[in-house]
């Protein structure tokens, strides 16, 4: 439960359900950054992340009256975001491209030319945090989806194992093992790219 002074998420939901739309805007303002970063790290594309974030809030706006336990809002909103990510991921995999996908792909290709990581050799020298973030984005896209989502939730959102269990609705041990194997897979990528170097890790 997040709170801004006395305005907890639960209180904002009650106000929204009593007809105050601005209360939902406060929820959007409070949750847009964490959800955007969650989606961005999951999909690896900022434009798609914005679309998915927008769809997530629209879905939440429509479905919020059906949410019975308001204290579960954070779990619930992450579940919606995750479902939207799955849908986006499926449409991306199916090869069906709409106009915005084509534009995204064009932009993606340009960026790939600029900063394509050679899996065999890795970056010679990482200049700044933004460049490192780009490599991390690509590294996350290289591990299985179910491991990636657990790593994002734990590393960047600090969710407890039980919270991740509730969002993903998988056993607790599955959450831990996905995290273990996900980190191991990432570590292999980092070693391959040289991202595990001591100078890189501690100088940035």
């Amino acid at each position, binding site marked *: 439960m997040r709170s801004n002074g006395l305005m907890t998420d639960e209180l904002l939901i009650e106000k929204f359900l009593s*007809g105050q*739309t601005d209360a939902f805007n406060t929820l959007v303002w409070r949750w847009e950054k964490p959800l955007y970063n969650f989606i961005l790290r999951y999909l690896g594309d900022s434009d798609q992340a914005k679309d998915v974030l927008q769809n997530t809030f629209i879905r939440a*706006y429509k479905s919020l009256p059906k949410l019975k336990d308001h204290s579960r809002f954070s779990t619930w909103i992450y579940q919606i975001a995750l479902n939207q990510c799955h849908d986006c991921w499926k449409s991306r995999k199916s090869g069906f491209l709409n106009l915005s996908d084509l534009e995204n792909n064009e932009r993606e290709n340009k960026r790939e030319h600029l900063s394509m990581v050679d899996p065999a050799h890795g970056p010679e020298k990482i200049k700044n945090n933004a460049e490192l*973030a780009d490599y991390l984005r690509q590294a996350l896209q290289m591990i299985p989806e179910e491991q990636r989502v657990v790593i994002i939730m734990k590393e960047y959102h600090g969710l407890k194992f039980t919270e991740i269990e509730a969002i993903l609705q998988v056993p607790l*041990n599955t959450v831990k093992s996905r995290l*273990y194997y996900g*980190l191991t897979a990432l570590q292999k990528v980092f070693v391959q790219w040289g991202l595990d170097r001591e100078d890189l890790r501690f100088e940035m």
Partner: protein
Amino acid sequence: MKCDNYQNLIIEKLYDEIAPDDHLRLREHLRICPECAEKMKTLQATSQTLQKWPDSEPHLNLTFIPENRLTVRNYFKKFSFWKFAYGLAGACAALLLILAVSNTSISYKNGDFEFQASFRPNHPATQPLPENYLTKADLEEFKKDNYAAVSQLINENNDREKVRQAVLLSDMYKDFESKRQSDLQVVSQAFQQVSYGNEQRFNQTDRALGALIQYVNYQNAMKP
């Protein structure tokens, strides 16, 4: 115990969600197992590297505005007297306009009012008048006649009511008189019976006293 069994404990330790007992067990295992100790270090390093990806701002400016869907609930929530009054006035005006446009006419025919509406022009000059067409003056005259007839009926009814009441009072008087006569007869008979009874008793008493006097005289005569 195999090292695989410590995978979850390594993860729990990495994120400080390990139970104290498990922590002790893991520490003991890492002390004797260099492979797991190295794994622990590399996972920590991977985690630290991941942390170098800072959060981004979405710059989305999403704002939700209230829906203005016209539902029954919303309508009554926004209900106001003036809104209702204006609505009613508008509806009446629309109805009058429709009636005017549809050449509505109301006429009295054979004792009934007749309503007619048509969207075709209804000019009196172009349409023939009905056989028993009534004017306004006819209606006024009919109204007067009707009024006189009704007044006459009321007066006659009042007269009849008065006569009926007089007859009723007369009958009641006669009935009371006959009952009074019969009551007087009963009382007179009762008086007669009482006086006859008294007379009989007086005579008996006289006879008894006479006999008693004779008896006393006799007794006195017999005394020596």
